[in-house]
């Protein structure tokens, strides 16, 4: 099986630990992922802010880079949702046939990380060890965009040493929403404050999610408040083992 890692521009640029964790985790499970070097950004920010032409250009680049693989693994519910939900619409309205063909080839083979682990590899115990109190935030696009369901929690429950605590109001948006956080900074901050309060109420030491952009948002406020709660991408928890450190 030829597997491509679509690491996403946010992880590539700001959270390389997550990318490394995915590579190591997959390797531990016997999968050597390829990193198609031409990839950059899926175009979600442009699409969702109303820059459709730029989004189409980036979508075309992305499918060109990712086509031909048996599976594309994306460690971001949001970018996976962009590819699966919005690419077909963009391709349809662009009227460019090669683009539409590439989208039709790539979209059904695109998996968010936990989907790939649970549905394709069929594993729920990835052999991780993480002796910390953790709460999980199911980000909007993971939950309502691509319907990850309880895959992430199923994986987390198998992690040895973990103390998993439920997050009250988990299904509510953290207020990130890409450029929403800038354009509607006040409402965004109000939403984030409620999310932060819910996280603190759990007494967790780690907040985990399948999306680093939401974690960057919530983590940014947790950090500003000197709350002492750290945020971690799910992949990094699943990758950590008794012998090696997190890094």
């Amino acid at each position: 099986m030829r597997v491509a890692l679509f690491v996403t521009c946010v992880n590539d640029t700001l959270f390389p630990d997550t990318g490394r964790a995915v590579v190591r985790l997959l390797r531990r499970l016997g999968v050597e992922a390829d990193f198609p070097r031409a990839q950059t950004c899926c175009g979600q920010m442009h699409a969702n802010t109303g820059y459709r032409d730029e989004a189409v250009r980036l979508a075309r680049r992305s499918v060109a880079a990712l086509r031909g693989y048996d599976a594309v693994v994306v460690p971001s519910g949001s970018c996976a949702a962009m590819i699966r939900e919005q690419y077909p619409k963009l391709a349809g309205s662009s009227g460019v046939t090669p683009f539409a063909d590439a989208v039709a080839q790539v979209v059904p083979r695109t998996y968010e990380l936990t989907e790939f682990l649970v549905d394709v590899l069929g594993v729920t115990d990835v052999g991780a060890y993480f002796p910390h109190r953790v709460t999980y935030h199911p980000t909007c696009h993971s939950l309502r965009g691509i319907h990850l369901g309880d895959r992430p929690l199923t994986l987390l429950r198998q992690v040895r040493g973990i103390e998993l605590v439920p997050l009250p109001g988990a299904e509510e948006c953290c207020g990130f929403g890409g450029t929403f956080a800038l354009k509607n900074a006040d409402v965004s901050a109000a939403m984030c404050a409620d999310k932060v309060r819910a996280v603190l109420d759990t007494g967790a030491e780690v907040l985990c999610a399948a999306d680093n952009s939401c974690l960057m948002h919530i983590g940014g406020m947790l950090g500003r408040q000197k709350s002492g709660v750290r945020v971690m991408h799910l992949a990094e928890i699943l990758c950590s083992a008794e012998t090696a450190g997190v890094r």
Partner: protein
Amino acid sequence: MSVTFLGMPATRPFPRNAARAVRDSQLRFNLRKATRTIRARRASVVAEAPDWAELREAGRAIKEHTLRNLDRYLIQLEEAVTAAGGRVHWAADGAEANRIVAGLVKATGETEVVKVKSMATQEIGLNEALLEHGITAYETDLAELIVQLGDDRPSHILVPAIHRNRAEIREIFAEHMSGWGRPAPEDLTDDPAALAEAARLHLRERFLKTKVAISGANFAIAETGTMVVLESEGNGRMCLTLPRTLISVVGIEKVLPTWRDLEVFLQLLPRSSTGERMNPYTSTWTGAAEGQEFHLVLLDNGRTGVLADEVGRQALRCIRCSACLNVCPVYERAGGHAYGSVYPGPIGAILTPQLRGMESELDRSLPYASSLCGACYEVCPVAIDIPSVLVDLRARARHPWPERAGMAAAGWVFERSGRLARLQRAGGRLRRLVPRRLPGPLGGWTDTRDLPEVPRESFRDWWDRTDGGRR
């Protein structure tokens, strides 16, 4: 084209209205409490219906089919209503509808009318228009009454006074009821039952003596000419049955093809809106019922423009249940007034700019009044994909130049992976120089949140250096 009026003047952009609202602790508390109550109720009665997904799909399809054959169904409706003794009027815009209604009321010789809560008449500013003709319209729905007495504006589709709590309502009643009719009882408390009782007493006389009523309708059945109104308090029944003349102002998208279709919508609507298995009262009547004089005013007011839009058209499926408002995290914090339209919340964010256009700063800001979290789509009983319509509207909006420049720059960087890599390396070298507070619009982030630390090495450089961790 003239600008469609939606019951409120378009003023400041949404973010500025919202910024003020998020600081209003009373408003935040009231909205939080109310939306959470109703969310839980809706969730429990929806979970109880084993065929909810199938009802929702049928609701979506029936509405979509109706819209796609709207001319045919409107004509059929007109014929059926006329055959049953009613009269049908067509209003291309709000001003025409107001003229028609004022003329009909004047013809009765009356100067007072009672009203059942109706979004369509709010949308066209009917009460204000009637007043210019010397006709006073009395709102009879409890929440509408609160808004009218308080000289306030509605902030929710179903519960226009959702932004008010019981203590505020008590104050409004005690102070203003006397100006509109029977005063509030001297010893009025803020117990909701006492407040409801005060409204009952205040309106009782008026119901018994007023000769003309104005309503909307939740559904209009083309096949039979039947109008359907769902309500809770009985004020609707009072208005629909007691007066001699009944005038219903109904948006053209409210038509349903067949009587049978009610089996779907009488399940979808109550469970989605008030979170009940069934609302206390549903009235249906066909034409001139029980000797009444009945007028149906069919209202376009921008709807046909929405109908022409391939993506935006689905907004016309809306049955005004308000489930999307109740579940919306942005609505919960910004409140309904921030949307500057009688249609607030997610549905307002897609409907208002389509009806009114995107000329004003406010209307251009509405499609952005969402984090695209998708909660509205999930609860919508007719499956309106609100996030997709928002994104589509954003693509048509005029964007501010600094944003255009930023987006173009980002697009240029992402155009070539080499450009991205070079930028990442520069960022890695300059990582210590990133300020704690960012300037301009980016400051919206750093006002309340830290920035993530820029890593020394990007993922792609790590991959190259270590051959994907194999070296």
